[in-house]
């Protein structure tokens, strides 16, 4: 993916990532956590992981991670492109894994009946589809249905694995 991205760093465990967003509101530390959803024993052909992310915000004398915040830093496409890049980094190192991601539904998204973050994830995927679909296989899930990913359809959850 050649989109403009932030440089990220990852912990030695390979599941925890961070990067710094720099925009109109200054610097904001972003955190990405990849966690297993089911064990390889339950799903013998692959492990499924969830990707979640948010902003580190000051909380009393410490910091906490808030996944519901709209940062308003004016760089959302770059942030989303970085998260997608992190997902790719993880999958390349974990060949038999499937990664699931589902955006946070904030009040605005609920009112509009659309998952704003998912739309941004999908925009990043769709605009790089020719390149991404060479190496990665995508699925989209809505309710109890899961299908091969189609550009132009909005999904509740996006799942991706290496081809």
């Amino acid at each position, binding site marked *: 993916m050649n989109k403009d991205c932030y440089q990220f*760093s990852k*912990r030695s465990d390979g599941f*925890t990532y*961070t990067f*710094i967003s720099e925009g109109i509101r*200054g*610097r904001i*530390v972003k*955190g*990405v*956590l990849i*966690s297993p*959803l*089911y064990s390889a024993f339950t*799903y*013998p*052909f*692959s492990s*499924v992981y*969830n990707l*979640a*992310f*948010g902003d*580190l915000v*000051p909380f009393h004398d*410490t*910091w*906490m*991670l*808030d*996944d*519901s915040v709209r940062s308003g830093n004016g760089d959302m496409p770059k942030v989303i492109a970085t998260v997608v890049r992190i997902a790719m980094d993880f999958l390349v190192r974990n060949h038999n894994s*499937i990664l*699931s991601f*589902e955006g*946070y539904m904030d009040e605005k998204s609920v009112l509009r009946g659309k998952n704003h973050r998912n739309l941004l994830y999908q925009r990043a995927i769709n605009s790089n589809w020719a390149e991404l679909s060479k190496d990665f*296989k995508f*699925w989209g*899930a809505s*309710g*109890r*249905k*899961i*299908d*091969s990913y189609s550009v132009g359809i909005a999904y*509740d*959850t996006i*799942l991706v*694995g290496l081809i």
Partner: protein
Amino acid sequence: MYDQMEKDKSYEAKLEELLKDKERIYEIIRNSPALKRRNEKAAASLAKLPRPFPWEKQKSEANS
């Protein structure tokens, strides 16, 4: 306006302190209750989907 400037200065100072310790950042991310909740929600969404999953089918076919 003055309050906002003070707030911004205080945020920047706290941020500088935080950025000195990357392990602390990782710990905050790993121990985040918000991300744990998201993980539980994702597990619940996945559990609703019919089995076998498409990738399981593909790998099963490839292995047979």
